[in-house]
């Protein structure tokens, strides 16, 4: 592809150098200070920085070598490089996006550990727009990234809130009484049970009293026409390992109607709480639509009055209890029978309904943010190559009265997770 961009053709070696990271100790346990990057991104924090400016980190060693951007001074350990501009007219955030558009992992110096050599990197060609255009391109892409990050932060907040509410109501028994006052602190009545003192009217039960426990299966892998790109969603624990999302609609691969009929796969309704029963135990997600799963799940289809959100938080806070009931030495697995028998407290329907009233809209917002992030990611990834090649041009204001040029990079807002 060639467009009349008028951009400067050069190589990364013409405009930048790669600087080695340095060995560092004791960064893993710290949670504050300057960010520390390795070949795959953020790995910890430390007191000192290696680069006193925001910048780009490029993986040096490892099968997967990423490209990362730090919006503040940072440290890089010795498995990675950081980019140091040779010319003043290089916007580092633009450089970051430009490098994201290159398959760094296909470059390999051929030593035992896959790695990127500096000379290979320096010879990569690049079309360099002027600094103003670089800045505008970077701004467009980063506003998308910022929104993605913000959505993640919102979801984290919502999750914490719902969890706090769950704990307050169902662990500390401070759910609102008839007068809307916290039950326990306002002298609510308690009864003796095997699980200790519980609020009057609640009972001790098992998971099977909250919903139907259902397993999954795998249609024969030998049969190619059992699998398809778009068919009936079929989810494995691996799919959940790759996402932090609370809601899921499908996994990497779907199954066909034929695959469905020729196996014991079970169709689970929307709102089913998926719970991985092995490898490992305890990935949890809520199905956004009808799904099926492989045998790595013991999912709970909540009874109507119980609600998906309640079951989701209940399972989440009981992962350890469930794990303890698992058997198997090398790979622990929880069986359907054991899952059904997990002891739980069953609140009154009234309290359950109130909880769902509050938490369901929170869940809907989380779902909206997750979906928005999928769209934003797609938009960004579709635009990225076109913006870098010049196929799509961003408008650049003609008025460049920036006395403080060259501007290397701008720090954008920081959303600390």
């Amino acid at each position: 592809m060639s467009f009349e961009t008028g951009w400067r053709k050069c190589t990364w070696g013409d405009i930048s150098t790669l600087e080695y990271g340095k060995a560092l100790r004791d960064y893993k346990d710290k949670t504050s200070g300057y960010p520390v990057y390795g070949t795959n991104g953020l790995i910890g924090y430390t007191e000192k920085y290696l680069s006193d400016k925001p910048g780009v980190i490029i993986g040096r060693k490892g099968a997967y070598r990423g490209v990362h951007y730090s919006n503040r001074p940072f440290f890089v350990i010795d498995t990675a490089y950081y980019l140091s501009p040779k010319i003043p007219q290089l916007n580092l955030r633009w450089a970051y996006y430009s490098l994201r558009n290159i398959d760094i992992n296909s470059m390999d110096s051929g030593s035992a550990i896959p790695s990127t050599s500096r000379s290979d990197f320096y010879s990569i060609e690049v079309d360099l727009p002027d600094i103003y255009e670089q800045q505008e391109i970077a701004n467009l892409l980063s506003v998308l990234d910022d929104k993605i990050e913000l959505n993640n932060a919102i979801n984290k907040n919502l999750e914490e809130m719902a969890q706090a509410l769950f704990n307050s109501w169902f662990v500390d028994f401070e759910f609102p009484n008839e007068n809307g006052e916290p039950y326990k602190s306002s002298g609510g009545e308690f009864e003796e049970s095997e699980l200790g003192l519980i609020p009057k009217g609640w009972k001790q039960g098992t998971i099977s009293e909250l919903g139907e426990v259902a397993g999954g299966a795998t249609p024969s892998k030998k049969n190619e026409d059992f699998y398809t790109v778009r068919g009936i969603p079929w989810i494995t624990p691996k799919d959940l390992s790759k996402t932090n999302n609370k809601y899921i609609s499908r996994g990497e691969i779907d199954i066909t109607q034929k695959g469905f009929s020729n196996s014991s796969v079970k169709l689970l309704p929307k709102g089913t709480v998926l719970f991985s029963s092995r490898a490992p135990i305890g990935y949890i997600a809520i199905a956004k639509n009808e799904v099926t799963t492989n045998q790595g799940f013991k999912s709970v289809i909540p009874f109507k009055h119980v609600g998906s959100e309640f079951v989701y938080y209940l399972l989440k806070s009981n992962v350890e209890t469930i794990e303890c009931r698992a058997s198997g030495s090398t790979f622990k697995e929880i069986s359907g029978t054991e899952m059904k028998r997990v002891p739980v407290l069953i609140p009154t329907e009234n309290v359950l309904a109130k909880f769902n009233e509050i938490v369901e809209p929170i869940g809907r917002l989380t779902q909206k943010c997750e979906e928005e992030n999928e769209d934003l990611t797609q938009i960004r990834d579709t635009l990225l190559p076109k913006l870098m090649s010049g196929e799509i041009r961003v408008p650049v204001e003609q008025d460049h009265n920036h006395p403080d040029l060259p501007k290397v990079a701008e720090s954008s807002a920081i959303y600390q997770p």
Partner: protein
Amino acid sequence: MATANIGFEEKLWSMADKLRGSMDAAEYKHVALGLLFLKYVSDAFEEKYEALKNEPYADPEDRDEYVAANIFWVPKEARWSYIKDNAKKPEIGQLIDNAMIAIEKENPTLKGVLPKDYARPALDKTRLGEVIDLFSFKVGDEESRSKDVLGRVYEYFLSKFASAEGKNGGEFYTPNSVVRLLVEMIQPFKGRVYDPCCGSGGMFVQSEKFVEEHQGRIGDIAVYGQESNPTTWKLCKMNLAIRGIDGNLGEHHADTFHNDLHKNLKADYILANPPFNISDWGGERLTEDARWTYGVPPAGNANYAWIQHIVNKLAPSGVAGFVLANGSMSTSTTAEFEIRSKLVNADLVDCIVTLPGQLFYSTQIPVCLWFIAKNKAPKGLRDRRGEILFIDARKMGHMVDRTHRELSTEDIRKIADTYHAWRGQAEAGQYEDVKGFCKAVKLAEVQEHEYILTPGRYVGIEDVEEDSEPFEDKMARLTSELAEQFAKSRQLEDEIRKRLGGIGFEF
């Protein structure tokens, strides 16, 4: 302390590493440990020799003087000074072999045990000489002996070899902290101590140490062991000899299942770390054996054969503590389930401890400790019949390097104290169930759980630590953050709209 640095282990290792060339780690181990052994006996001897020289009327060449002091008599040609003087000669290999032969001849307990192949051509004599030259520090004089320098170097070497050799190495090296925990728990003060798969003898050395620490007399313990691997068996002999422990390891190496060398033994204490889950133990040839009181163990896994062998070897008041893979606590194969249920019903299982993963050198396998007691209501202790103590120690220990975990002295004390308190040992304090850590469980409850012995089932989950942030404060913080995020969100939405509009995508 296994990892506490005594300063020169690393140096010693890199020195010994010089020898590594054409030989594999298993072979090289004997070369390195043999030299270490020679240096040790020689140091002890030479120190005594010097002392005797300065003593009027004493003859430094009088053999009995040494025997009386529990020091190996070392003939002239085996003394380190002699070897060192000849270190640069091409025939040094032969000289060392001769030294070994001479020591064996003078000390019958070592017969056939010491390595004697230093003369073989494959061993680089120049390097061998260099190693001897560098070996200048003392390991066997009184001061080093009191600090157990040799023990620590030995242990360090064994563990290094275990790491270097991979899986097979791990078969005979039980990590120090696990041995210490076993020993602290069953307290083998006096009596017959037996290890049916003793490897290089780590369990005994620790037991002896324990006795010493408690001012008991070494002679109070009689040591019995058996080991099937011939080289490991020799290593064990050396290991015991060096520490002056007179152990009965049988006349030769032998398979514990098929050639029990201690047929009539009833041990007061059994300590063991049987190899995990071995599948080719020849069980199909042993379907009828007196030891299988509780059922025939499956031919495909020796775990339950080990358990029953141990139960069989226990004296009427005996206590056993041993390491098994976690699967042993919950396996549901018919044969194993049957044996386990019978062991529980016979009230033999005293205590089960699950340990954290990564304790072993060569495998990440998480393991558990089984404790079997023949008499659960002995004099002086609480009647704990019909009860099993479960301890979940999975969260204990700390990482000593990237892949290895170790239990600290405090961890070990906490676990041992819990067991002792439960047994009713007054000095250990009052026993109490601790959620998430330990629970004393009636047999009926274990039966309800289908005889599954996994502690996690019984001890429950530790109470979640009270959130340091009160609910109201937390919600106030989160909602105000959310308000900001919502505002920021609208701002970003506008900006995205504007920017995408700028490249022709209005919406």
